[in-house]
């Protein structure tokens, strides 16, 4: 402790990293999956896959809502886009609005509609990619506030680990490209350093922005001081919203056809219409809001809203054209916007999403290699002694948090295909499968000897992930050899990524299972000196 700055930072880096590393792996892995949560959800609802948008889609949605929710207080239609081929219909049933549990607006009822036929689709019950996404920042089955705080503490540890790691690293630029394979602990250290240093901008951005997203929860003290405890006043000022409350419904009246209005909006903004909201449908005071999708500028405000036109429902008169304007933002406000926009990938470009997905994988690997390094270093220090309980525990937890989680995710996807579509509490069963597999891998990891355990778990995830596309072929009509999967890039992409990742796990399995030629090298003697400052 009383040594140099570098030594104390190495100590801090090691222990803050290990203590919350397991949680961080889970946060990183599920967070990486969250880049594709819409695509995962779509994959998990094969009943939606055959839907195809046509010129009639909007009219069909109009008719379908008129049939299933004629008395609703409001309608909300999300039209098909590159990420989902079906139409999502939402509506608020007539009657008093019920406040949602835990605050916020009630989202009302929702249904999926086939974009080509107007038929109401009933996909299998699943939480889809949303489960992994929520797990990423509020776990599961834990009180939401506690879980968020826990994850934010872990994120703070990560930030400290990043900074102390940089201070610890002796030759950050000299070792920039250095990887020395086949040298046990040394190689793990190199791999950890390489993935950490090279991706440092990404790691810093993702960690800091993760904290910024919960800034108001974590650091309300600035608001409390400047606004004298009145947080509402701050929100009203920071995120001004039109507070125009919808009046009572008027007399019944027919609405105009939606097609020409949508065409006018699309022409006005030169973009396809993405969303249609209606207040008091089929009443004389109906209001139709038609929006198009627009990318936020990277430093733009999060709740800017989309370009929108508002029409009078019964006459079709244009009432208002809303074009989001960028509010003047102070420098740090811009920093906030840039970071959170990047964290949440609020950009339509699928390329950006893919690149971030791979960065997320690299980030997961960075945390994982750090934890493997911890075990590797202490295993080498043992010098043929039996590993103690602590080392076994850490190793078991490592296994559960890395291969175990991947097994759980694979099993979650597989369960979606295997469980009967009509099973009661189906979505809960998918989640139960997820946790049962995870728990099994933890027990397995704690019981089996070090190397055997890794080999067995890697074998399981290799088979499981490679099997997913084939399971798809047996159970759905939108597999890799179908036109539907390729029409929607998301579905083919899902299967291809499963194959790619399965192959990656297979490669890892091959590397671990391969007998090691030089198990006890004399060169090992100088390694502790080399790595002292770091592991």
């Amino acid at each position: 402790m009383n040594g140099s700055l570098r030594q104390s930072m190495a100590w801090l880096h090691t222990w803050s990293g290990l203590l919350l590393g397991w949680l961080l792996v889970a946060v990183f892995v599920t967070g990486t999956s969250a880049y594709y949560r819409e695509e995962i959800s779509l994959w998990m609802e094969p009943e939606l896959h055959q839907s195809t948008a046509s010129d009639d889609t909007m009219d069909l949605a109009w008719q379908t809502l008129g049939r299933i929710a004629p008395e609703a207080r409001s309608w909300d239609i999300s039209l098909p886009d590159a990420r989902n081929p079906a139409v999502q219909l939402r509506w608020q049933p007539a009657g008093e609005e019920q406040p949602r549990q835990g605050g916020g607006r009630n989202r009302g009822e929702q249904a999926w509609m086939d974009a080509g036929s107007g038929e109401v689709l009933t996909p299998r019950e699943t939480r889809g990619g949303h489960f992994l996404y929520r797990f990423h920042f509020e776990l599961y089955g834990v009180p939401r506030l506690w879980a968020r705080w826990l994850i934010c503490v872990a994120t703070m540890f990560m930030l400290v680990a990043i900074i102390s790691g940089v201070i610890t690293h002796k030759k950050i630029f000299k070792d920039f490209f250095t990887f020395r394979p086949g040298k046990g602990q040394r190689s793990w250290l190199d791999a950890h350093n390489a993935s950490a240093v090279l991706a440092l901008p990404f790691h810093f951005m993702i960690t800091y922005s993760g904290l910024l997203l919960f800034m108001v929860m974590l650091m309300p003290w600035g608001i409390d001081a400047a606004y004298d405890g009145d947080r509402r006043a701050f929100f009203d000022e920071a995120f001004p919203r039109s507070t125009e409350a919808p009046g009572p419904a008027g007399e019944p009246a027919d609405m105009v056809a939606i097609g020409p209005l949508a065409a006018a909006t699309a022409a006005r903004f030169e973009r396809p219409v993405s969303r249609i909201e209606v207040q008091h449908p089929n009443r004389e005071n109906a209001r139709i809001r038609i929006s198009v999708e627009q990318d936020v500028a990277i430093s733009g405000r999060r709740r800017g809203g989309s370009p929108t036109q508002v029409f009078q429902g019964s006459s079709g008169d244009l009432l208002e054209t809303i074009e989001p304007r960028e509010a003047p933002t102070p420098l740090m406000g811009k920093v906030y916007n840039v970071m959170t926009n990047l964290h949440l990938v609020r950009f339509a470009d699928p390329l950006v999403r893919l690149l971030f997905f791979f960065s997320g994988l690299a980030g997961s690997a960075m945390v994982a290699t750090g934890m493997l390094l911890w075990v590797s270093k202490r295993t080498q220090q043992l010098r043929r002694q039996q590993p103690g309980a602590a080392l076994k525990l850490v190793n078991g937890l490592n296994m559960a948090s890395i291969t175990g989680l991947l097994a759980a995710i694979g099993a979650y996807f597989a369960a979606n295909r295997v469980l009967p579509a009509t099973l009661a509490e189906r979505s809960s069963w998918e989640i139960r499968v997820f946790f049962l597999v995870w728990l099994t891998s933890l027990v397995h990891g704690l019981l089996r000897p070090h190397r055997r355990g890794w080999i067995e778990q890697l074998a399981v995830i290799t088979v499981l992930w490679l099997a997913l596309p084939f399971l798809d072929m047996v159970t759905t009509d939108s597999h890799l050899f179908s036109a539907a999967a390729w029409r929607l890039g998301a579905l083919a992409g899902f299967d291809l990524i499963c194959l790619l990742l399965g192959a990656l796990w297979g490669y890892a399995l091959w590397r671990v299972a391969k007998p090691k030629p030089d198990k006890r090298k004399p060169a090992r003697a100088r390694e502790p000196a080399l790595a002292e400052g770091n592991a």
Partner: protein
Amino acid sequence: MSQLKNATRLSVASRAIAAVLGGYALSATATAALSVGLPMSRMDAVITASVLSFLIYSVAVIWAFACATTARAWAGIAIPTLLCGALVWLLGPAS
């Protein structure tokens, strides 16, 4: 690291508390002080201060473990915390 002496253990525990709790206290009061003290509109000041708060926290944690002595680690966190607290108390909510 496995042969930590008792004194060292105590020092580690003490620094950990200084880092985690003291660091939070420091970043909270510093955020509050900047929010009322920065020469900007109060919303901009709040956002600027809050965005910087996690940087302040990290620096405090690093400081707590980097200092040569535990006493200095504590002093380096406690004194700015008190100063920021006093500043908030003096300036009060900018209305």
